[in-house]
């Protein structure tokens, strides 16, 4: 049957990119001089599986390059070569090249052959120059002994199994150790291994299997169950299963005899080892492979397209609305049955909430997906700048919505880059200031009150307020004699084109960025604030909603209409007394709030609605913040707080100024969600007109 391999391409690319990320992370964790065998194993497997995959799909350039990479890694794995900084650098560059090659293949664009060839040459050179130190014996594999089958004495069957793998068994991903361990779990297993075929170390191919096993299993399970264990190895081995006569009697008779040789599988393996030291290569590889395979079986995952999850989210959103409609109806009923109905509805409500939360969790991913790129970036940047920078990451398992995750990457890259470039000083400056020569960049994520907070900080020089102010004055942004608060000074760095860097580097300093950072964060419904202390460092604190699909809202009423104001934009709600409002130039109304005058924005005027009252002291003022500006929004009344599912108006209509979306309330009617930043802009345009 002709198989269309193209259908697997996407999965291959997805997996490969993920695997390359893992490889990169593992490379960064490698300690020069004393590499951890597990990490090298991980790295090797990535290269190996990409090689295999690309060869299968006919991406020969990728396969050829990865093969060279794999050869080098194999040298490292076998301890025939030392892990040095140049080698890890070389491998990191290989990761980049592999990633670019795969991307090129994915988009059917040409591969930069020169770059690939150059690096491949470097890799080959490194392999040739390896220090020919003899292979140090690797630590013996630590295979956990399987739970000894307790009831061995009364087994229904006694199976004799002759298991002779062909040499390609391992290449096809089968793990004899795992099979033996599974057999061990089924009952009392006696293992005899024939290692006579194993060649000498020089001729040994670590990817081939040379062992032959003769097994005896006293168990209650049938032949089918035993055969199932070898299902995957079918065609890769010679397998004979036969029953020993008179099982119960034999079991009883063999019980004492079995007692000693029926050692756990691992012991049998170990026993085989001293005979031929070469063997250690094979089991090590397998031992590393085993946890992965087990992981697939138990905590397995599947790939689901985000569209499907979004559909599910939508449907659950509908369910929530229908459920609250029913609940409202239920409260109107009376009588005994109504009581039962209400109890049922309450149960339904709980279930629906749980369902909604579960679906939301499906969309949640740990922020490590974004954080994982930073160790590499900080390492490269600090190397280029000649600084010593250590990156400290905490809370990288904090989960947030995938859409938020995708959009937060770029702002964070910018902030981290700034911290390394501007924040951390050169080592000599640091020592002169009495700090350790190595600077630290912090990256922290944690949940706080229904939001996620991400902090990017450094222990560098901090923001220089005087310099920012000076620069702002020279550019006429702040009057020469005007004094402004610290917060206002920090606010300046978010202005477009504002940079105090003495020289523009290719890393940062062109003044493009902080405004974009803030805009991106605002678009996600989040906020960013700055804390800084001169000489001690600065900290950028980003607060983001957990998801974009749901917002905590405050309902307000204006006349007969009701609107939802996102809770995150509300500073305070207050009632003005008559006489507290002043008019500026007979036009705009302002009132004193905390430390300044704020303009009043009459929602009914902007939206052209007939309000209950036009007297400011009869309604309510809601102080809201959008685009860094505060205004007092005049509404009739506050109704209540609720979580609402955001629906786009643009799906069937178009964008409306001052409205960010709509939602469906419990009674099935539609309420509009206010876009506070948009309202502030509308108000400014009106004032200007």
């Amino acid at each position: 049957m002709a198989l269309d391999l193209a259908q697997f391409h996407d999965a291959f690319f997805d997996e490969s990119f993920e695997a390359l990320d893992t490889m990169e992370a593992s490379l960064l964790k490698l300690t020069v001089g004393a590499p951890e065998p597990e990490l090298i194993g991980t790295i090797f497997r990535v290269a190996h599986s990409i090689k295999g995959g690309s060869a299968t799909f006919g991406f020969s350039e990728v396969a050829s390059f990865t093969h060279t990479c794999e050869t080098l890694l194999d040298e490292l794995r076998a301890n025939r070569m030392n892990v040095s900084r140049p080698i890890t650098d070389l491998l990191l560059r290989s990761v980049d090249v592999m990633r670019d090659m795969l991307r090129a293949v994915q988009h059917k664009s040409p591969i930069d052959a020169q770059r690939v060839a150059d690096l491949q040459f470097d890799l080959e050179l490194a392999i040739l120059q390896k220090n020919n130190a003899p292979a140090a014996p690797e630590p013996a594999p630590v295979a956990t002994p399987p739970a000894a089958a307790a009831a061995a004495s009364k087994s229904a069957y006694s199976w004799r199994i002759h298991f002779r793998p062909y040499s390609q068994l391992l290449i096809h991903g089968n793990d004899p150790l795992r099979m033996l361990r599974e057999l061990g779990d089924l009952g009392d297993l006696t293992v005899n291994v024939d290692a006579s075929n194993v060649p000498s170390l020089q001729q040994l191919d670590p990817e081939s299997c040379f062992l032959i096993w003769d097994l005896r299993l006293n168990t209650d399970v049938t032949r089918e169950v035993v055969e199932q264990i070898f299902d995957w190895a079918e065609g890769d081995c010679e397998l004979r299963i036969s029953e020993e006569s008179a099982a119960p009697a034999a079991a009883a008779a063999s019980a004492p005899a079995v007692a000693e040789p029926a050692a756990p599988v691992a012991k049998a393996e170990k026993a085989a080892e001293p005979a031929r030291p070469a063997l250690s290569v094979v089991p090590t590889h397998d031992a590393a492979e085993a946890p992965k395979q087990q992981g697939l079986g138990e905590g397995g995952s599947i790939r689901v397209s985000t569209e499907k999850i979004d559909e599910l989210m939508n449907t659950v959103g509908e369910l929530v609305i229908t459920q609250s409609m029913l609940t409202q109806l239920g409260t109107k009923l009376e009588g005994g049955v109504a009581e039962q109905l209400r109890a049922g509805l309450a149960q339904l409500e709980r279930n629906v909430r749980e369902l909604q939360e579960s679906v939301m969790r499906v969309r949640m991913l740990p922020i490590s997906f974004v954080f994982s790129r930073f160790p590499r970036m900080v390492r490269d940047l600090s190397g280029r700048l000649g600084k010593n920078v250590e990156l400290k990451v905490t809370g990288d398992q904090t989960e947030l919505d995938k859409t938020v995750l995708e959009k937060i990457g770029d702002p964070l890259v910018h902030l981290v880059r700034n911290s390394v470039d501007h924040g951390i000083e050169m080592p000599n400056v640091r020592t002169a200031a009495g700090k350790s020569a190595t600077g630290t960049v912090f990256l922290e994520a944690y949940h706080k009150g229904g939001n996620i907070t991400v902090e990017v900080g450094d222990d560098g020089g901090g923001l220089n307020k005087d310099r920012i102010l000076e620069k702002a004055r020279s550019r006429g942004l702040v009057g020469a004699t005007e004094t402004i608060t610290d917060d206002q000074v920090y606010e300046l760095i978010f202005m477009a084109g504002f940079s105090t860097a003495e020289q523009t580097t290719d890393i940062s300093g062109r003044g493009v960025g902080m405004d974009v950072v803030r805009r991106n964060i605002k678009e996600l419904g989040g906020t960013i604030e700055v804390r800084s202390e001169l000489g001690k460092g600065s900290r950028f604190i980003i607060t983001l909603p957990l998801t974009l699909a749901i917002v905590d809202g405050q309902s307000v009423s204006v006349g007969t209409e009701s609107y939802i104001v996102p809770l995150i934009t509300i500073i305070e709600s207050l009632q003005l007394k008559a006489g507290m409002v002043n008019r500026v130039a007979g036009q705009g109304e302002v009132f004193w709030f905390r430390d300044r005058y704020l303009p009043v924005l009459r929602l009914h005027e902007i939206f052209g609605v007939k309000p209950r009252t036009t007297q400011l002291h009869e309604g309510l003022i809601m102080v809201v913040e959008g685009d860094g500006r505060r205004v007092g929004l005049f509404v009739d009344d506050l109704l209540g707080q609720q979580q609402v599912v955001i629906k786009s108006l643009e799906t069937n209509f178009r964008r409306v100024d001052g409205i960010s979306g709509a939602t469906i309330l419990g009674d099935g009617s539609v309420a509009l969600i206010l876009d506070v930043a948009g309202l502030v802009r509308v108000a400014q345009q009106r004032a200007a007109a």
Partner: protein
Amino acid sequence: MQAAETRNGAVETGSHQVLTFTLGEETYGVDILRVQEIRGYSTVTRIPQSPPHILGVLNLRGSIVPVVDLRMRFNLERAEYTPLTVIIVLSVESAVGRRDFGVVVDGVSDVIDVASNDVKPAPELGEQVSTEFIEGLAAVSGRMVMLLDIDTLIGGDVAGLAAAPAATAA
């Protein structure tokens, strides 16, 4: 009118089904394949800063659908909304993609077969009467049915101001 007919796919089939509805004394028709749903009138949520004939939005099984009052769109005398007032939900091809729109009409009459031969172009009535959204006129059992080109009629309400980039993803 050749272009209009081709767009509707009516020429090939020879005849197509049309849902007719009334506005005052007149009967209009829309291609039945464009009709998503017919439902009773329910209160809509007004959208600020929109043209007067766009009444607002309502909840159509979870999606937010704008509603147009055809009487106001055609500058007819306004009628009171009663429980018998009907909203026809149509799918409209606009310059920015497929949109669902509700139109408020007085009442739904019938589904009729209209042969392509029976469709006559709308006469030019001078500048007072705009006929660009009339696809053609059909005489069916003695009555004149105005076939509406809903893409032209409603699509403009979407495309006109849709250039602004989306700021919210929902």
